[in-house]
Every structure is written in structure tokens, then in C-alpha cells.
């Protein structure tokens, strides 16, 4: 695991520790953390795996619904609920992945999207279990051991702990042999195959790992909102996480995190003035595609750092 990634993780942790002091309100800070984890888990699939999945809302939403349903109906224990959410969403990712991974490129996108829509319809129609259109209401926040997570600030630090651990694991995965192989077959599928890699299996494993952390993010989201909105399963949520990745910078791990922070903050600010967030979101999408394809991280890497080096004289040496 390269030192630069550890530095990034440590600085993210340090910033996140003090973030509630400057954030407009604590719940917003928690939401940002949750989407940062969601976006980073998605980077594994899009950035490193080169697979444009348009169905990741499914795993996020399934994680959220599982957490809510376990807390309401089975046992009021947060660790059990989150563990259950991770298991269920990993299973769902294994199912969707197994069926869709045999298709590549655009077909993969369509198939993942269609499966996500299937879960959306199930949640929409199975009203007795999921609350249908109104979403799953009344998700409790039981104490974790002696800790009361009802105060938003306590919940924030609980979420932060889980998010940091998950991010550490994701960074580890990317720099493991699995991650390297994944990038190799993103770059050249045929060559990776001829070297003897089982391409589809690697893609499936990455997909399931990604779905697992998306599910955890979803579970935390249910705790944060005290409910699960049906929209968490809709494919526009998948689109949002894609744009977080593009805006932040694909295949950089912390780029998507920056993307998530920017999008959620921007949504919060714009929603104060108008209800046409979707319009702005669409415009952000189009602008990102036309003028900002390398994302924020790429912008710094390609534009700012070379310029700074020119002025400061190789203050930031280029690594190869």
C-alpha cells in the first residue's frame, strides 16, 4: 500500500474529525461521509474495473432496507443490522454480478440498470414489508453497547469509524494483487486473458466487494435518516454516484470522495434556493462531461501541480 494513499486516508480522517465543527449541521456531515464511502466503493467497479454499472443504487438501497427491516422486525441491534445489510447486499451483488458480468461494455450497463430497477419495483410493490412509495418509516437507533447514538454528533463519529475502516479495506484491495489484476484487465482484456487470468471472476469479485461496501453505506444511511426513502433504490441514485466519480476523478479512490463531498454540499446549498436540484444536477453532469473529464484530482494533477512546480521549482516531484 503506497504511502501517498495512507497520507490521504490519514488526512481525510483528520479533516473528518473536525468537520462537524464547520459543517452547517451534523446530519449533513454524516450524509457526506456515507456518500463518500458509497462513491469510493463504486470507484472499484468503474475506475479500477472499467465497468460502468448503472445499478449500484440497488446495493445501497438493499443495504438501507435490510438495516431498517432488521432493526424494526428482527432485533434492535445496530451491529447485527449492519452485518445483515452487508451480507444481503453482497448476495444481491453476487446475483446481479453473476448474471451481468458475462456481458461487457454497454450491455453490462443496461443489464445492471435493469436489475436495479427490478429491486426498485419489488420495494415499490411489497408495501407490507417496505412501506412502498412512502419508504420504510420509523427506523430506530438503538444504543450500541453503552453508547447512545441518538445525538447526531455521536452517530457521526460512529459512522466515521466504520467509514474509515471500510476505506482502509478498499485502499488495501486496490493495492492488492487482486486490484492490480483488475487494472490489468481493464487496460487490456485479451492480454490479461492470455496471461491466464480468469477475467470474469476478477470482475465478479470486485463487483461483490463494491456492492458490499455500498450496502454498508446504505445501512448507515437508514440509521441517519431514521427511514429509508424509496428513491435510494432508484436509478437516478446510481447516476448520482457515477457523477461523483467523474467529478472527483475516476480510479483515484479519494477523487470520488471529493466528488461526493462537493455534490452533497452543492445539493444542500442549491436546495435552499430552489427545488430544481435535478436540473442543476443534469447541468453539472453535462459540464463535467464537456470540461472536467479528469475530475478534481486530475485537474490538480495535470494543471495545478505542474504550474506550481514551475513557480516553486519542483516542490512536488513527479512520481512514476
Amino acid at each position: 500500500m503506497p504511502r501517498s494513499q495512507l497520507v490521504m486516508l490519514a488526512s481525510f480522517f483528520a479533516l473528518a474529525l473536525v468537520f462537524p465543527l464547520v459543517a452547517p449541521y451534523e446530519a449533513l456531515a454524516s450524509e457526506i461521509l456515507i456518500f463518500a464511502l458509497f462513491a469510493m466503493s463504486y470507484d472499484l467497479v468503474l475506475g479500477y474495473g472499467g465497468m460502468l454499472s448503472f445499478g449500484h443504487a440497488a446495493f445501497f438501497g438493499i443495504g438501507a432496507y435490510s438495516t431498517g427491516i432488521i432493526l424494526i422486525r428482527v432485533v434492535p441491534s445496530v451491529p447485527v443490522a449492519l452485518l445483515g445489510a452487508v451480507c444481503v447486499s453482497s448476495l444481491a451483488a453476487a446475483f446481479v454480478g453473476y448474471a451481468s458480468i458475462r456481458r461487457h461494455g454497454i450491455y453490462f450497463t443496461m443489464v445492471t440498470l435493469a436489475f436495479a430497477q427490478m429491486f426498485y419495483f419489488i420495494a415499490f410493490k411489497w408495501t407490507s414489508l417496505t412501506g412502498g412509495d412512502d419508504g420504510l418509516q420509523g427506523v430506530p437507533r438503538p444504543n450500541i453497547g453503552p453508547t447512545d447514538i441518538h445525538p447526531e454528533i455521536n452517530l457521526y463519529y460512529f459512522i466515521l469509524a466504520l467509514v474509515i475502516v471500510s476505506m482502509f479495506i478498499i485502499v488495501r484491495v486496490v493495492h492488492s494483487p487482486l486490484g492490480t489484476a483488475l487494472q490489468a484487465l481493464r487496460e487490456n482484456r485479451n492480454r490479461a486473458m492470455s496471461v491466464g487470468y480468469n477475467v470474469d471472476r476478477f470482475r465478479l469479485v470486485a463487483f461483490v466487494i463494491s456492492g458490499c461496501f455500498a450496502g454498508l453505506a446504505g445501512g448507515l444511511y437508514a440509521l441517519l435518516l431514521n427511514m429509508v426513502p424509496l428513491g435510494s433504490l432508484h436509478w437516478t441514485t446510481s447516476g448520482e454516484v457515477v457523477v461523483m466519480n467523474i467529478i472527483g476523478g475516476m480510479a483515484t479512490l479519494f477523487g470520488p470522495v471529493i466528488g461526493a463531498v462537493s455534490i452533497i454540499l452543492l445539493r444542500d446549498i442549491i436546495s435552499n434556493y430552489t427545488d430544481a436540484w435535478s436540473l442543476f444536477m443534469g447541468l453539472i453532469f453535462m459540464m463535467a462531461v464537456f470540461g472536467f473529464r479528469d475530475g478534481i484530482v486530475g485537474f490538480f494533477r495535470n494543471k495545478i501541480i505542474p504550474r506550481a512546480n514551475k513557480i516553486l521549482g519542483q516542490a512536488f516531484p513527479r512520481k512514476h
Partner: protein
Amino acid sequence: MNLQFVLMQLFNGLILGSLYVLLALGLSIIFGMLGIINFAHGAFFMLGAYAAYTITSYVIPNFWLALISVPVLMAIFGAFCEMLLFRRLYDLPPLYIMLLTFGLMLVLQDAVRLLFGSMGVPFGTPKSLTGMINLGFMYYPSYRIFLIAVTSLTAAAVWLFLTRTRLGCIIRAGTDNPRMLQALGINISKTMTLVVGMGTGLAGLAGVLAAPIQNVRPLMGMDLLVDCFVVVVIGGMGSLGGSVVGGLIVGQIIAIGVMVWPPMANTLIYLFMAAFLLIRPRGLFGREAFHE
């Protein structure tokens, strides 16, 4: 469950299937030429319905005028989108055009919502097509029979255009190998404008036809679009026959689902797709590794 009811449902499935066919045809030819899925296709469909509403309620209250003018207007709109937006991104991986169309979809839907409201607008059946037709074994609304007729004629016309005219021949060649086409001296960028315009026009036509039988609301195309993805996955991308057969199959699956267990009707098509992918990954008429 009597026979009358079953036949009625199968006919309703045929109506839904007809809309799928029109949308999937447009999706499929755009996909064939550009190698992208057009996320804005559902929004184009919705825009067609709203254009019909605007024409019939504010300009001239004549459905027939809307039926003819909206597809043309939408085709022009699509051609402009291609020339102003899509064209700049052809050199990049297809991911970017798809994201662009996704953004375009959000913008169009929200713009329409701001203009007309999120509740939707009323759209009546055209006067000359109200009432029922006696089919011998049952009575069926004449507008719906008309819809099936128009769709069949359009699908036939598209098929004739693509297989019997020089321009259609160029388009099919471009679907096969755009670079080779360019090397042979064909102006490929004009062809692409034409294809996107044609696909958008078909989506607009589907929008006008759907307006009297569906709720005209800003998000009407969004979920229909995902169903169309199922259609093209089952039918096989880039195959016109696949779009037609796939559209009719998916329409019937929903109709049968509604008869058997209504809440599962929509879920059924995705399960069918999953099963289909395991048995025949390239779809009914799809070619191996086409645009993968």
C-alpha cells in the same frame, strides 16, 4: 377468468408492446451507429407527449396535426442535439456520451416539470377515435386499434427504409463498420445526425401515441426506458427484428403478469431477462460481440 378478459389483457399487452417497439427501434439504431445507449430517449418520448399537448391545447386543437408535426419537430430537435452536443464527444470512450445523455435527461425532465408542473397534464382521446370497435369476439377501444395500426405501419416503413433505400443501406453499413464507411467516401457525420434525428423522431411519435392512454407527466419516459433496455437485451442490440419481437414479448409478459399476479408484473420482465441472459447472452437476434 374468462376468455374475454384474457383476450383483452393480451391486446393491452400488444399496446404496451407497440410503444416498446417504437422506442426500442430508435434506441437500437442510435446504438448501432453511435455505440451508445441514449439515456435521454425516455425524455424524448416524454417531450413528444408534451409537444402534442402544447400543440393541441395552445396552437390548433387537432390531434392529426400533432401526430404528423411532433415526430418531425422531435427529429429536428434530436438532430440539433447530435450536432451541438454528441458530436463533440465521438473521439472519447462511449461512457462520456452516455453520461451526457443522462444529464440531458435530467435537464429535460426538470425543465418540463418547472414549465407544466409535476402532476402532469390532461390529454383526451381524439374525437374521431373515441368509442369501441367490434372485433367479432370482443369490443375494443378504437384509439388502441389505431395505435397498433400506426405502430405496425411505422415499423414496416422503417424496415423498408433501412433495407430498400440507398440511405438505409448506408446506415446499415455504418452500423457494421463506421470507419470503413468513412473510408469509402461517405459523409459519416451527416449520417449520424440523420440517425439520431430518426431515433428521436420515433421516440416523439411514441410520445404522441401514448399521450391519450398514459398519464402525460414529466417522468413518464423514465421507467419505460428501463423496460426498453430489457427489450433490447432480449431482442439483441442493433437488430431491428430483435427490437420488434423483443418489444412484443415484453409487452405480453407484462400483460400476462397483470393477469396472474399484478404486483409482480413489472418484476417479471427483469426475471425473464435474467433467465434469458443465462441461456442466450446475446439476445434473440443479436450478433456476437457487437459493440462490446
